[in-house]
């Protein structure tokens, strides 16, 4: 209905412009525009009907799959022209396709992802999330789909050369990430928890903190975009990413595992990763 109104309004505007251009062709133009309006309106209605049909189809195949993520984490997930894209987003799309479902991605703070899945507000989260024991108590993880690591970013010329040098330093992390959790084990560390990894990196470039502990792939992006930063060769920890679903939702878990296996076997998964991470 709203679309109809817009179509009519556009047609009327066009008619008005045309009318202003040529006085003699006045009646004719208006008439033509009027006819077009009706047609456009009819088309819109038809398109609306099609949408409804498509909606019905997707619900027949199992409906919508809602994914939550924190889209501030390139190259795994980030905003690009109003879309959330990245490795996780593409993998989730591929999984949803395999399951014959429609994918909807929602963006929220990283530390809200597991509560969102637990409370059933979302079906799953794919957010470069490391599998660890604490998280396993609260959600069920699929098979892992990526190798990852927590690395340390410092300024060029920093006296921090290996992870052990972090003792007693000011360290920036993103709240709730494994980097945040493990940084708590560093002796006498002064930990600054930011909402976004990028903000921690910004604080580092401004000299407010001494180092940032964050996942390797986003770290590479941040270092590339900010001159004067480097990643230490020795990683802080090694880990693996997986998708998390609500605890006890074995049906979805098994379907997703099957889809992940297919994607791995067919080489599609590697293709997605290669698309975003170019080999050095």
């Amino acid at each position, binding site marked *: 209905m709203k679309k109809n109104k817009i179509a009519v309004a556009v047609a009327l505007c066009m008619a008005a412009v045309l009318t202003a251009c040529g006085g003699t062709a006045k009646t004719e133009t208006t008439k033509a525009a009027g006819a077009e309006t009706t047609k456009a309106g009819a088309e819109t209605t038809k398109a609306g009907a099609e949408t409804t049909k498509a909606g019905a189809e997707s619900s027949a195949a199992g409906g919508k799959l809602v994914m939550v993520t924190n889209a501030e984490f390139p190259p795994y997930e980030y905003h690009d022209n109003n879309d959330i894209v990245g490795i996780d987003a593409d993998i989730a799309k591929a999984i949803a396709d395999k399951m014959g479902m429609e994918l909807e991605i929602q963006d929220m703070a*990283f*530390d*809200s992802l*597991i*509560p969102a899945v*637990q*409370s059933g507000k979302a079906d799953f989260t794919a957010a470069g999330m490391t599998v660890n024991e*604490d*998280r396993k*108590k*609260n*959600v069920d993880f699929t098979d892992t789909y990526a190798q990852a690591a927590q690395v340390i970013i410092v300024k060029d010329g920093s006296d921090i050369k290996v992870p052990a040098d972090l003792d007693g330093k000011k360290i*920036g992390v993103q*709240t*709730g990430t494994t980097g*945040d*959790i493990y940084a708590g084990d560093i002796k006498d560390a002064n930990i*600054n*928890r*930011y*909402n976004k990894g990028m*903000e*921690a990196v*910004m*604080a580092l470039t*401004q*000299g*407010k903190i001494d180092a940032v502990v964050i996942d390797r792939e986003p770290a590479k992006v941040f270092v590339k975009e900010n001159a004067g930063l480097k990643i230490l060769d020795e990683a802080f920890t090694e880990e693996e990413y997986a998708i998390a679903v609500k605890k006890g939702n074995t049906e979805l878990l098994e379907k997703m595992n099957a889809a992940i296996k297919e994607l791995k076997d067919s080489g599609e998964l590697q293709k997605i990763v290669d698309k975003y991470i170019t080999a050095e």
Partner: protein
Amino acid sequence: MWEKLRDDFYQNFIVDDRWKYITDGLQNTLKITFFAVLIGILLGFLVAVIRSTYENTHKLKVLNWICGVYLTVIRGTPVVVQLMIMYFVIFSFHDPGQVFTAVVAFGINSGAYVAEIFRSGISSIEKGQFEAGRSLGFNYAQTMWFIIMPQAFKNVVPTLANEFIVLLKETSVAGYIGLQDLTKGGDIIKSRTYSAFMPLIAVAVIYLVMVMVFSRLVRVLERRLQRSEH
């Protein structure tokens, strides 16, 4: 049910001394609010005096203009944006500490609102009072200080108290600059235990108790001030 609640409580506050996130955060929240209130009153008082002086006497034209710009900019932008500008832009090459940054940002913000509260208090006093003061031989400053201000202050106490309650709650956005305030403390626990209920309710209750205690104190102050009227 009780079993689960107890278990939740244990997980969220006892394990790993997690309650410390809350208490450390509370300390920062109180620190920021207290010093921001001081800056806010000082700044607000100054601005209000300048503005009312201009209104009454048309002096201090340039200062009045500066104050006008200050009020427009600060009241026209969200405090969380001001806070991030303070941290990431203004203090970008020097780090005075996150708490200090927050105190300055919230103080400057509060000052703008306090200024308008004071100014409305001053203009709520009848012109006759002012004229009476002047005709008794007080100069402008003396009239303001001894006659207008004491009455104006009494009138604005409730609104002023309200502004400080708002300020206390507004400091909950301090987490945006990586500062661990009360809200962020709850967030950190939430990110460790993945349960939202306990940490969020605990944080909410603490804010509520602080506001209730403060409101009670203000009511006592108001009653004291009223007594002097008789």
